[in-house]
């Protein structure tokens, strides 16, 4: 049941963004994040908004899914907005008791808020349109040049992929172990910090042992299917750039150029 929670929340639908090479999307996410930190004027945020809306439309993912990620940062958003709203010096606009709101404060809080919201939505677009496997494949391919300096890119990518596969399984196992120990009178809730830490031992030891056992089994199974590292491996789903990727790169470069221009000019 716990396994139903999908990691990264991939939303399966056939859109341009879904079909795009994950490397393109990784680059795009990076560009977008950089652009958000370059933005410091209304025009910049307007361009960023345009770009974001365009991407959202292109992803064909319902908007309700996009905003799900925002739930996690509601608190952070509130704090950041209020801090900027009430603690920035400048030309006073209103006063609520001892709290004053300045023009600069209003501007800063809006920009901070937008930045946070756009960051979350932007990354969500990435995870909603890319499967965990595509992500690791994309990372493996893009970081390929690091192989020259002996970085084990393939191995890292394989580890990430396997970790993604087993996280739901280990989460479920944690729940099972917790319940089994609670059935023996364990109490994970009460007590001070030290007591709580001690009570975790009967949870963590079996979990670690189980994880090691799985790892050993998995290694055996991988070897039985002739796995011996990245050498000589072919790919079932090789990454290939298509027309939409080339268009996307062009658009991204233009967008970034635009944001830099706005910053320097305005």
């Amino acid at each position, binding site marked *: 049941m716990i396994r139903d929670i999908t990691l990264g929340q991939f939303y399966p639908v056939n859109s341009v963004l879904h079909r795009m090479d994950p490397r393109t999307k990784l680059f795009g996410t990076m560009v977008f994040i950089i652009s958000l930190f370059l933005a410091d004027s209304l025009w910049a945020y307007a361009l960023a908004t345009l770009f974001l809306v365009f991407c959202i439309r292109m992803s064909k993912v319902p908007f309700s899914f996009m905003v799900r990620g925002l739930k996690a940062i509601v608190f952070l958003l509130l704090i950041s907005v209020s801090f900027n709203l009430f603690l920035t010096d400048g030309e006073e606009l209103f006063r609520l008791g001892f709290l004053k709101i300045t023009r600069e404060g209003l501007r800063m809080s809006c920009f901070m808020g937008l930045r946070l919201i756009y960051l979350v939505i932007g990354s969500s677009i990435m995870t909603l349109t890319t499967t965990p496997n595509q992500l690791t494949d994309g990372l493996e391919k893009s970081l390929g040049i690091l192989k020259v300096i002996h970085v084990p890119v393939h191995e890292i990518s394989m580890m990430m992929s396997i970790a993604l596969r087993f996280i739901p399984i280990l989460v479920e196992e944690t729940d099972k172990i917790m319940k089994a120990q609670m059935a023996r*009178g364990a109490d994970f809730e009460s007590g001070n910090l030290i007591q709580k830490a001690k009570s975790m031992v009967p949870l963590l*030891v079996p979990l670690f*042992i189980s994880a090691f056992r799985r790892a050993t089994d998995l290694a055996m199974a991988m070897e039985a299917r002739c796995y011996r590292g990245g050498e000589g491996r072919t790919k079932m789903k090789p990454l290939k750039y298509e027309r939409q990727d080339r268009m996307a790169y062009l658009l991204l470069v233009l967008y970034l150029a635009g944001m830099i221009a706005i910053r320097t000019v305005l």
Partner: protein
Amino acid sequence: MAIKVEGLNYIYGQGTAFEQHALKDVSFEIPDNQFVGLIGHTGSGKSTLIQHLNGLIRPTSGTIWFNGTDIYSEGYSLKKLRSNVGLVFQYPEHQLFEVDVFSDVCYGPRNLGLGEEEVKERAREALGLVGLKEKYWEQSPFELSGGQKRRVAIAGVLAMRPEVLILDEPTAGLDPRGRDEILDQIKELHDKQGMTILLVSHSMEDIARYADRLMVMNHGEKAFDGPPREVFEHYMELEAMGLAAPQVTYISHALKDAGIPIEDSITTVEEARDAILGLLKRV
């Protein structure tokens, strides 16, 4: 009355896309010292049900009584309930964690806040009940065989001195002799220690041999409830639920259909043999 359950409902993930009605209006009473078998297809709600009985899962609606008291009544200690209603999960050896066998078995009674002497006494008693020789007690639980580890895990629950013992597929993964040994030990706990037993199993033959009463779960509902021989009479309906009656039950029904006056409700090999021999010896 050891356990009484009325109108139990449990709904997973209410309001989300994953909403599932895991238990639908389940009611039953288990008297002291009964040996109950609980069967059902995978996903029928068996595991969910047993986790309600010791307060690990809280029902969406319905009431659960232990020895006459509502377990969710004001001030009722669920921790104490868990010492009275012992629950052994499937593959219980996965919960072992201590440096040595003896310490692991002490974990349960220690959690109950008992004195060291009492804790050790109970651990010794429990290990004796599962038949694990003393020479293993100082060893790391991870050095034991699968069957031995399982016995240590069961001892860990027995050390709480529960009145009711619930076991979820205690024979899973064991070889035939290992299965018999565990089941015989459970039967002994029922007969000699007077425990109330609730055994979740996939093996009809095992249930037929050991249980006084059989409850069948189907898609979250209780479909049948009665002595095994009665329940297996519904073998065709059981089959539709993805369950099977013991082989000898099918055989006796096939013989009956062919016009042989064999008696009803045969569920064990011994009964079948006696019945057939009886029929053949008639001159």
